[in-house]
């Protein structure tokens, strides 16, 4: 009796495990939470996949983690937003070439009462300096993402040091943009966010954009194919096809067409 049961169970296991296996017709793209959570990939991929005949699987993580996936050969393409780290990635031989893809900008958001009074300031560096002076609560991503890298650069420009303030008014979430915004809302705090995530974020509460338009808040995205010399498993043909399409007139137009409540979330690098 038990043997028959065992056979049945084993067959059931084999079937359930075998079922989700799919073909080789896909590439893996390591990208940032901002591109996935905002719905950009949901907008771009159906068109591309229908034309190309293969799937694009997106892993949405911070820029630091996405580049790490590339270094470990776990992705065919990386699409991230930290130009310096991207150039380093290519220079170290992990990626073939960085192609500028699109951009938007970062904004400083916070409670609409603006307790630190940053909304009349011109630059993000001045706003951060003001926050440090009045010790207004600031929530940092703290996760080595593109936004976190940008934020650290802005603190550097502000001339304020973050030594000895961690845990008091400067709080590191160690989380993605969405969770960080949720935390900032809960604490009545300021934070830095990319505009795409902000526009698509559903829990803004009494938070609003307090500072924008500073050229230092420029947020460029690049796309890089992982080098198959270092990672022989990379599906070079399909990966290149995807990158070529993103950079083509059609791909750039599709990026421009992606809007939320009438507002564009990403500006294509090249006007199509």
């Amino acid at each position, binding site marked *: 009796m038990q043997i028959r049961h*065992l056979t049945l169970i084993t067959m*059931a296991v084999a079937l359930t*495990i075998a079922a*989700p*296996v799919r073909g080789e017709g896909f590439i893996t793209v390591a990208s940032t939470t901002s591109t996935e959570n905002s719905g950009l990939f949901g907008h771009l991929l159906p068109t591309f996949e229908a034309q190309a005949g293969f799937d694009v699987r*997106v892993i949405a993580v911070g820029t630091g983690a996405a580049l790490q996936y590339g270094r470990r050969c776990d992705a065919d393409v990386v699409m991230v937003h930290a130009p310096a780290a991207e150039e380093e990635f290519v220079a170290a031989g992990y990626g073939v070439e960085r192609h500028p893809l699109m951009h938007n900008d970062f904004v400083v958001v916070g409670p609409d009462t603006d307790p630190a009074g940053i909304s009349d300031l011109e630059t993000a560096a001045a706003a951060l300096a003001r926050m440090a002076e009045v010790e207004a609560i600031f929530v940092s991503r703290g996760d080595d993402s593109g936004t976190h890298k940008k934020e650290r650069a802005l603190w550097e420009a502000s001339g304020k040091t973050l030594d000895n303030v961690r845990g008091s008014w400067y709080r590191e979430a160690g989380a993605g943009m969405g969770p960080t915004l949720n935390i900032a809302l809960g604490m009545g705090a300021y934070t830095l966010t990319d505009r795409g995530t902000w526009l698509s*974020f559903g829990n803004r509460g009494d938070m609003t954009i307090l500072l924008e338009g500073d050229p230092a808040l420029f947020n460029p995205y690049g796309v890089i194919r992982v080098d198959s010399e270092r990672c022989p498993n990379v599906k070079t043909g399909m990966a290149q096809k995807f990158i070529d399409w993103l950079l083509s007139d059609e791909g750039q137009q599709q990026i421009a067409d992606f809007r939320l409540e009438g507002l564009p979330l990403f500006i294509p690098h090249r006007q199509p």
Partner: protein
Amino acid sequence: MGDFAEAFLLMFRLLGSGDPELLGIIELSLQISFSATLLAALIGLPLGAAVAVFRFPGRGVLSATLNAFMGLPPVVVGLVVYLGLSRAGPLGELGLLFTPQAMIVTQTILVLPIIAALTRQTIADLDEGCREQLLALNTSPVQMVFTLLWEGRFSVMTAILAGFGRAIAEVGAVLIVGGNIREVTRVMTTTIALETSKGNLALAMALGLVLLMITLLLNLLATGLRNAAARQYA
């Protein structure tokens, strides 16, 4: 209260809509967690019973290890499986990273100690006389393990349900090894985490309620089966 009321309404709307993407996510969650629980039960039941019945060197240590591993941190298990299955890792050639199979393996590791440890305790608690009787009858070790498992089948089933509960509710590990890829490795818990991160709190809560309902339904089914079986064998 408004948030919860909204979530409840949304849950009924979600279930009523029969949205194919949501149904796919539920199906994948169940498929992965069923597979992992089955695999873990196949190994864990005989293992737990054997540790309870047979005397061998290191038995105490093994027993304590099983108990301790019931509390394995999922995120650590996820990281270990990720490093193993990553292209740069020892099993990279298999190309299993970011697949449902990788998620099954991860959940199996998490569930196995729960099923094995609870089974060990169940069998150890069985009437000592039952074991002596079997020994007197000169049963083979394999037969003895299966007979004892059958004797304790109702408690063993609770162990399996506890394991399934761990599998279906887990998020940290499957997020790392699955990557939460839409329509490939996106399951209930990773969807809830994603919607929370997008600030869609009502939707996230509604999905959480759907998950709770499914778990509840499965446990009711299991209890019903158990009662029916108990009546039959009484």
